[in-house]
């Protein structure tokens, strides 16, 4: 068991290391001198040269990488030239928005996917099964920015249930906060629940076909109890993995939705950094988001290990 945790931890660290090299390398080969970018075209060459060496850009690449990595470990990601603030502060300001939208949409997606997935598995080939499978296909094919625009027109403009755009902090008004993140969360949930539903349906079907289900039926237990207590329990592991993975993906994948609904979250910050070529900010953001994704995946894997006794005895046998 400890072996499993250690081996998962080791591979997470390796991935994180590779990610840091990719991020650093990709953004280092960007055309143009970052010092020139910051100062603009009117700066004199002397001033540019001064900033160039102040930023450590004249040092060899491996030394630059090493310094950058050490600073990352100290949570010092440098200063954004666009905002003139430290990248850590900027990220911490935007994080609550993205996190609450991601969490909210994951809750919505999970509830819908479990309800339809379980019914689909029990009543295989029924109308509900076909319906939920069709919706599942459609959900993954609809671009979130498009459904977002449709929602804005329908629920925002016509029905006036939710504000069209903008964000209300929870400290200001809790109801306003929920209202402002409901539409973006639902839009994200539509894109997410398809895969989840597919997994729940297939793992539920598999667990229904197990021998212990027949045993439970022979014992005369009620069908509701059989499905919810035995079948669902056996079918929980795969969906949990997917929920973890999707939540992690959501943390990094909200740019489009945040743009549609004008939410000042992490995704918007990434877009701003890309638009203005703020490399320090972009590097920090990419590293922060990707490491959180790796961390979440790691935690989910460990949680699943505790739930599933079959993995507990797993030994890495490569």
């Amino acid at each position, binding site marked *: 068991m400890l072996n499993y945790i250690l081996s998962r931890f080791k*591979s997470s660290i*390796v*991935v*994180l290391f*590779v*990610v840091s*090299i*990719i*991020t650093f390398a*990709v*953004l280092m*080969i*960007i*055309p143009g001198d970052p010092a020139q970018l910051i100062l603009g075209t009117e700066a004199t060459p002397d001033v540019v040269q001064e900033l160039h060496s102040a930023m450590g850009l004249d040092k060899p690449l491996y030394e630059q990488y090493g310094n950058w990595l050490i600073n990352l470990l100290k949570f010092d990601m440098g200063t954004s030239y666009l905002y003139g603030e430290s990248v850590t502060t900027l990220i911490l300001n935007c994080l609550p928005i993205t996190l609450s939208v991601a969490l909210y949409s994951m809750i919505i997606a999970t509830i819908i996917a479990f309800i339809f997935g379980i019914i689909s598995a029990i009543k*295989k*080939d029924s109308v509900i099964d*076909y319906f939920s*499978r069709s919706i599942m*296909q*459609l959900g*993954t*094919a*609809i*671009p979130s*920015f*498009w459904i977002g*625009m*449709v929602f*804005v*027109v329908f629920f925002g*403009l016509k029905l006036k249930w939710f504000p*069209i755009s903008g964000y209300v902090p929870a400290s200001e008004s809790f109801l306003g906060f929920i209202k402002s993140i409901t539409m973006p969360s639902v839009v994200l949930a539509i894109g997410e629940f398809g895969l989840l539903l597919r997994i729940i349906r297939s793992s539920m079907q598999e667990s229904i076909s197990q021998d212990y289900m027949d045993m439970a039926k022979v014992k005369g237990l009620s069908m509701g109890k059989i499905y919810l207590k035995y079948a669902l329990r056996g079918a929980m592991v795969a969906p949990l993995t997917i929920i973890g993975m999707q939540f*992690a*993906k*959501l*943390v*990094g*994948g909200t*740019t*489009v939705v945040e*743009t*549609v609904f004008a939410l000042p979250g992490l995704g918007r910050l*990434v*877009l701003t950094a*890309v*638009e203005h*070529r703020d*490399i320090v900010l*972009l590097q920090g953001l*990419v590293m922060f*988001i*990707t490491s959180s*994704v*790796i961390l979440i995946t790691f935690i989910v894997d460990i949680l699943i290990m505790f739930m599933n006794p079959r993995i507990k005895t797993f030994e890495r046998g490569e």
Partner: protein
Amino acid sequence: MAKKKETFYKNSSMIIGLILVSCVLLICILSYFYMPYEPNEMNISDRFIKPSDNSEYILGTDNFGRDILSRIMIGSRTVLTVGIGSVCIGAFIGIALGALSAQFKRVVGSAIMRVMDGLMAFPGILLAMMLVTVVGRGAQGSIIAISIFMIPTFARLVNSMMLDTESLLYIKAAKSYGSTNMQIFFKHFIPAMLPKLITQFSSAVGSAVMIETSLSFLGLGIQPPNASWGLMLSEARQFFLQYPYLAVAPGIAIIMTVLGFNLIGDGLNDLLIKRRSKA
């Protein structure tokens, strides 16, 4: 009875997918021979004509008075070129890297696979956005960014399939006959992997189209005045509260394309892989 229904559902998803994709392909081919209007031609007197106005503009006009139908038609070229092109490049490099890492398992192989793991760890379109910063916007930048995005999926698939197939008897037999690695790869591995690769290819085109339209929507993909469906939606954003019809046609076009390729991928998966493993 239930079995019949099941096969019908599977085949129907394949058929619907084929119909949707051929519609998009036809529109794209047609755009080379005939378009109702010049797609970039601005006509200020004809701004915001709705499709319901019964004018000669079937899908209406946008904020510059450009014909939406013509822009949808020329946009299909961008979407298909970027979508299919980037998956072709990504698949080619991915297959090569996957094969290489399966062949040289120790140092080279594990180094390649670790880099693939790293590339896959970037969530969603974050990697594509970062790459666009470096390679620049426009169709070319999108193709490069999306093809790099596609490499790890194919590399992993090929790597794992080759490791599975390697121990089979006919491969061992070919080796003992003195076939070179290249011969074995093209004569035996590729045919064995083809069903899964084709399936993966189709679904990958679906997601490539989704990434392309998302990048264009964010202003990081195709640049104006060129037409891309994502860009059309992005341009519609300023006006669609008054003129919701602006968002209808590009949205439906994207859904048709992505859904079509996804359904074909699913249908192929059932036809080529599941049925084979049952037999």
